[in-house]
């Protein structure tokens, strides 16, 4: 574990989160390359602000935040934008797709923008990612004609097309049916094992309200609860954890 590259380090970072009113959530945390983190928390515990801040989308209220070895506060906006492109981020709910673009255009846009090339030139790569995400039949669809689960997968494809080094997914299982839940867990598991036939990140962070579907070896768990960020440990630590909120999140009573 020690020889792995450090991707993110949060030292006394204060995440601006609305937990029990307006407050700052203090976080000390390190993410190494190749890790799969599952960060749990009940509704309103500050999961989304924590994930967005960790990805460098929002500035922290205080503390020191290093992303890929660089202090985010000392970087120019242009460098921050380049850094963000190395992190695949999937937003919660419908993934915040661009409403005026269809599925292919949504996925092609970041690649076309970063490489400065026509959308037609990136179509083979876009098609490969859409195939992997099981979205080929929806390629020409408008986002608002798709179900919430499919929209979230399009957002995943859009995040993966840039071949990021790190993937962060905000509550992928919320309001999903059992088939979609299984699809997400399997897809991310294969990704972590580098078993997809296209380049994917092996470092993954997901947030969840239910630890159950994510329980597996080689994963690390943390909890956001009561305005605190707490690292719980690995599968064995979580499975026997006595804290009631963790027990509820293991049995699915929190979802």
């Amino acid at each position, binding site marked *: 574990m020690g020889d792995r590259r450090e991707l993110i380090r949060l030292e006394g970072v204060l995440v601006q989160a609305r937990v029990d009113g307006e407050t700052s959530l203090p976080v000390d945390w390190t993410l190494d390359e190749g890790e799969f983190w599952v960060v749990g928390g009940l509704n309103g515990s500050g999961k989304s602000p924590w994930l967005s801040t960790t990805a460098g989308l929002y500035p922290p209220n205080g503390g020191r935040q290093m992303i890929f070895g660089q202090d985010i506060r000392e970087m120019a906006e242009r460098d921050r*934008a380049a850094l*963000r*492109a190395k992190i695949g981020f999937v937003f919660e709910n419908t993934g*915040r797709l661009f*409403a005026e673009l269809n599925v292919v255009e949504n996925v092609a846009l*970041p690649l076309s*923008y*970063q490489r400065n090339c026509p959308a037609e030139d990136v179509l083979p790569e876009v098609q490969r990612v859409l195939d992997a995400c099981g979205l080929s039949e929806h390629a020409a669809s408008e986002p608002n004609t798709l179900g919430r689960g499919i929209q979230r997968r399009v957002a995943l494809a859009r*995040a993966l097309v840039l071949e990021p080094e790190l993937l962060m997914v905000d509550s992928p299982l919320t309001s999903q049916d059992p088939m979609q839940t299984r699809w997400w867990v399997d897809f991310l598991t294969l990704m972590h094992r580098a078993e997809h036939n296209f380049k994917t990140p092996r470092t993954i962070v997901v947030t969840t309200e239910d630890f159950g579907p994510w329980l597996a070896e080689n994963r690390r768990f943390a909890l956001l609860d009561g305005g605190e960020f707490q690292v719980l440990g690995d599968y064995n630590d979580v499975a026997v954890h006595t804290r009631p909120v963790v027990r509820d999140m293991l049995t699915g009573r929190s979802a």
Partner: protein
Amino acid sequence: MESSVSENAHEPVRRGLIRRYFDFIGRQTLRTADTIKSVGAFALITIGVTFTKFNESTHVIRPLIRGQIARAGIGMLPAVMFLGGSLGLVIIGQMVSLLTKVGAQQYIGLVMDTVVFRELGPLAAAMMVLGRVGTPTVVELGTKRAQGEIEALEALGIDPVHYLVVPRVIGLGLSIFALTIYLILVVMLSGLLFAFLTDVQITPGEYFGQIAAGLTYQDFVFVALKTILFGAIIAVVTCYHGLAQPIKLEQVPYAATRAVSLSVGGCLLLDVFFIFLYIIVGL
């Protein structure tokens, strides 16, 4: 005695109302000053991004500029033709007719240049684009902001100002310039048509000759500058109201109203500036 007591009783209420009125005026003034300051900062950011990223992601940005031109320029042509025709017949035709009646035909060109070329054309085109494209821009961008699409752009390493604002500034600037030229041409032609229909004793040669004689190269430079700046003001103000501050969906219509007021004010101020410029260069 009773009436004096009653008046005294109403005095604090009256003072309270006056005070509240001045409080309201003060708050509105401070708010407007604050908005102008913020729009100014947003305009500077937009100018910076326009120049520093001029050659970046051109395969994405240029089609967006073309889209804005199609929407604000080509899409507005029929409406501009109609407006130009109406203005020409109603205002310019009447003016030509009146000047001819009082034997002042020699001023037709000057009046056309001053009224249509310098003032009416640019302002009318800008107001049409503001109504047709500016207001929907606030709604579009405000909705994007409210639905979190701006954060999605940032998460993908796409600069929202580069992707959403720059194409609108360039597109609206070029569109208003082109529409103004069309509007001026249509107004002049319909003015001539009115003169012909009402038997005004002026030939097309004299009519266009007088107009051409009244124009200098500065007129063309100033009209180009003014219209492009009108477009930039409308684009920056509407984009600012849609993008630059956190907004909820239900606040979008109010943001659109404020954007229209500020855009009109900005365009009129710029127009006043150009009037002084015309005076300074002696036109």
